[in-house]
C-alpha cells in the first residue's frame, strides 16, 4: 500500500491560529472582567459553566486516548496526538476552578444554609471535603495526563513498543478512576447547585455530554489540519467517518441518559426528586428544556446519520460546531436555573465566556503543537491506523 508512516513531515501551524486564539482569549477575558464588575453573581455562575466545559473536554479527550489503548483500536492512532493535545486542558483546570472556589458562599446554598436533609448530607457536602476532592481529582488527572503523553511522546523517538504496553495498563487504571472522578466532579459542581436534589445517572449524563463536545473539538481540529496538510497524508475521510460515528453514538447516549433521568423522575413523581425538573419547567425555562431535544438530539442526529455526511469535511465541521453549541446549551440548562429561577437570560456576559472558552482551547492547542509532532510517528499501530478503511 502506498502510505507509509515515514511520510509525515512536521509543519508549524500558521501564525494566524495563535493570533485568533489570543484575540478570542483577550476579548473573552475583557468581557468576563467587565461582566464580573457589572453583574458579579451571574458571572460567578457562568464561571461554573466555563470550568465544567473545559474540564469535561480535557478529561474526555484523555478518555479517548485511554480507550484507544485499551481497545487496541487502530483507526484513531493517526489522530491520537490531537486527543492528547486537547487533554492538556487538564493542566489549566486549577486556574479555572479558582473563580468557583472563591465564590462558593454565593453559589452553593449548602455552604451556609442547613436543614434536615442538608444536615444529613453534610458529611459529604462540606467545604473542606469539597476542596480535598477537587484537589485529588485534578491531581489524579494531571498525573495520568503526564504519564500517558510522556510515554506517547517518548515513543516518537524511541519507537519502543513496550511504551504502548505501559499505556495499555495505565488505561485500565485510568478508566475506572475517570468514571468515579468525573461523577464526583459533576455532583460537586453541578448537582450540588440544588443540593436537595439527586439523580444517580447525572454523572454519566455529564460525562457523555462532555465526550460529544470533546469529539467535536477534536473533529474540528482534525478536519482543518488534515484538509490543509498538517497531518499525515494517509489520514483520509474514513477517519472523519469514525469521529462522526463517535459523535452520533455519544449524542444518542446523551439523549438516552437525559431522557431516562427525566422520564423516571416524572413517572415516579416523588416530591424529593421532582423540584429540579419543576425549576426547569417554570416560565421560559420550559422552552429551553424542550428545545434540548431538538438542539442536542434531533438536529445532530440527522446531521450525522448518513455516511455521506460523516465523510464530508464541511458537513463534519458544521455538525461539530453545532454539537459544541448543544453542549454549552446543556450546561446552561443545568447551571443557570439555580441563578435565575424565573427564566433564562442570555446576553453578552454569556457570549464573553464562550469566546473565552474558545480562546483558551485554541491557544492551549496552538502552544501544544509548537513542541510536538501532530502524529504519533513512533506508534507501532500507526501503519495499520493509516490503512484503516471502512
Amino acid at each position: 500500500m502506498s502510505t507509509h508512516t515515514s511520510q509525515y513531515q512536521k509543519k508549524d501551524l500558521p501564525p494566524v491560529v495563535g493570533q485568533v486564539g489570543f484575540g478570542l482569549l483577550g476579548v473573552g477575558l475583557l468581557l468576563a472582567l467587565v461582566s464580573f464588575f457589572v453583574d458579579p453573581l451571574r458571572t460567578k455562575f457562568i464561571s461554573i459553566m466555563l470550568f465544567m466545559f473545559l474540564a469535561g473536554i480535557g478529561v474526555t479527550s484523555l478518555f479517548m486516548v485511554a480507550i484507544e489503548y485499551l481497545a487496541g483500536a487502530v483507526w484513531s492512532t493517526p489522530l491520537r496526538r490531537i486527543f492528547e493535545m486537547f487533554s492538556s486542558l487538564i493542566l489549566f483546570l486549577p486556574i479555572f476552578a479558582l473563580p468557583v472556589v472563591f465564590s462558593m458562599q454565593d453559589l452553593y446554598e449548602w455552604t451556609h444554609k442547613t436543614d434536615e436533609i442538608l444536615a444529613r448530607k453534610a458529611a459529604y457536602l462540606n467545604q473542606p471535603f469539597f476542596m480535598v476532592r477537587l484537589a485529588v481529582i485534578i491531581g489524579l488527572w494531571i498525573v495520568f495526563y503526564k504519564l500517558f503523553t510522556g510515554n506517547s511522546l517518548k515513543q516518537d523517538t524511541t519507537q519502543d513498543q513496550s511504551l504502548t504496553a505501559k499505556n495499555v495498563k495505565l488505561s485500565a487504571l485510568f478508566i475506572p478512576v475517570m468514571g468515579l472522578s468525573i461523577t464526583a466532579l459533576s455532583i460537586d459542581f453541578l448537582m450540588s447547585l440544588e443540593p436537595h436534589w439527586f439523580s444517580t445517572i447525572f454523572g454519566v449524563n455529564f460525562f457523555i455530554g462532555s465526550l460529544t463536545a470533546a469529539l467535536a473539538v477534536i473533529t474540528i481540529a482534525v478536519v482543518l489540519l488534515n484538509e490543509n496538510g498538517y497531518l499525515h497524508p494517509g489520514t483520509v475521510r474514513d477517519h472523519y467517518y469514525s469521529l462522526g460515528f463517535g459523535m452520533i453514538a455519544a449524542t444518542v447516549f446523551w439523549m438516552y441518559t437525559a431522557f431516562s433521568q427525566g422520564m423516571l423522575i416524572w413517572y415516579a413523581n416523588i416530591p424529593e426528586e421532582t423540584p429540579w425538573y419543576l425549576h426547569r419547567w417554570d416560565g421560559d425555562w420550559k422552552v429551553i428544556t424542550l428545545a434540548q431535544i431538538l438542539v442536542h438530539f434531533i438536529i445532530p442526529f440527522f446531521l450525522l446519520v448518513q455516511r455521506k455526511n460523516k465523510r464530508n469535511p464541511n458537513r463534519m465541521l458544521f455538525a461539530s460546531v453545532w454539537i459544541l453549541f448543544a453542549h454549552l446549551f446543556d450546561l446552561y440548562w443545568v447551571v443557570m436555573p439555580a441563578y435565575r429561577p424565573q427564566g433564562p437570560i442570555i446576553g453578552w456576559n454569556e457570549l464573553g465566556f464562550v469566546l473565552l472558552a474558545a480562546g483558551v482551547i485554541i491557544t492551549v492547542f496552538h502552544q501544544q503543537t509548537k513542541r510536538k509532532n501532530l502524529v504519533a510517528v513512533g506508534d507501532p499501530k500507526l501503519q495499520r491506523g493509516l490503512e484503516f478503511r471502512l
Partner: protein
Amino acid sequence: MSNQLYALSGQFETPDEIMHAAEEVNKKYKQYDVNTPYPVHGMDGAMGMGESPIGWVTLVVGTTCMLLMLCFIAWIQLVDYPTTFAGKPDFNLPGYVPILFETTILTGAVTTVLTLLFVVCGLPNNAHPIHDTNYAKRTSDDRFGIYVEAKDPAFNEAEVRQLFEQLGAKDIAPIYIDAEEVAAGKNMSVLKPQFIGFAATVVLVISGAAYFGLNHMVFLPPYNWMSVQPKVVPQKTNTVFKNGVSMQLPVEGTIARGFIPYAKVGAKEGFGQSMANPLDPTAEVFALGEQKYLTMCSACHGNYGQGDSRLNGQYPAPPSLHSKKAVEWADAEIYHVITNGQNIMPSYAKQLTRDERWAIVHYVRALQRSLNPKETDVQ
C-alpha cells in the same frame, strides 16, 4: 464440460493484491465479484461501490413500525380500554418512548437482516455457480479471489485471463454454470408453496407450542403439584361438611375466645349510657387511637374530624365531629356508630377490634377537646 461459461476467476495471496486487482478490474468491468475469507476493509471503495441502500430499509421500516406502534398504543389508551396509571394522562407520551424506541430498533434490525437474506441474497435459493469449485474452497480458506462474469458486455475470456496474469493471479480458472443446480435452485423460492408451507408450519408449531405450554401444560401433572394441593381453597365446595362450606359458623349460643359480641347491633336508641370506655386514656391508647383514626376514619372525616373529606366529593362528606350533638354524645354512642355504622357510614366492626374502637373514641374525644379547650387545658 458441456455447461455454459459463467465467469473467469483468479486467486491472490494477500489482501493488498486483491485490493489492487479489484481496482484494476473495476476500471474495465462492471459484472464481477470478489470473495475473501474475512472482510477486507476498504474493498467497497476499491470496487467502486457506492453507499449501500440497506440503511434506508432500516430507516423506513423502523420509523413506520414506530408510528404503527404509536397508533396502536393510542387506540388502546384512548379508544379501546383507557386506563389511568400513576395519575398520568391517559395518553402518556413520555412513558411510551421506551416502547417506541425498542419497537424501532427491533423491527428495523430484524427487517434489515431478513431483507439481506431473502431479498439481496435470494434465500432459500442458494444455488450459485461457484459452489463446489476449487475457487470457492480456497477463497473461504486462505486466498482472495476475484471473478469477472461472462455476461459483462466487455467480457472476453482471453483479455480477462491476460489481465489476471498481469496482476499476478494464481489458479486462473473458468467457472461453469451447472445446469442441474440452476434447475434445482429455480425450484427454491420464497414464493414456492413448499417454502410457504414450511414457514407456516414453523410459525404454527412455535405458536402452538407456546400456547399449549402456557395455557395447558402448566396445569398438567407434575407441573401443577404446586397449585393442586389437598387443602381448603376459597370459593370451592367442601365435601367434608354437609353444607359444603369450609368456613363454618360458630356453634349456636357460643362465642369465640376473647371476643365480646356487641349487643346493640342495629339498635336505634338505648345504648347511650349502656357502657363506659373500658380503656384508660394512656399515651399508648392515644397513639393507637390516632393511628387507627388516621387510617380508617380520616379519609372521610378529615384529619381533625371537621368533615373535610379528602375524597373530593366522590362520597358524601360526613358532618363535623365537633357538632354540639357529637360533643355531647356519650362515649358509647360514638362506639355504637363505629361498630354499627350510621346511615351511609358503614360499620367498621370487621376492620377494627373492640379495643381499637374504644381507642379511637378516646382520640375523637381528644380532637373535640382540642378545638374547644377548657380553661384548665390551656394552662
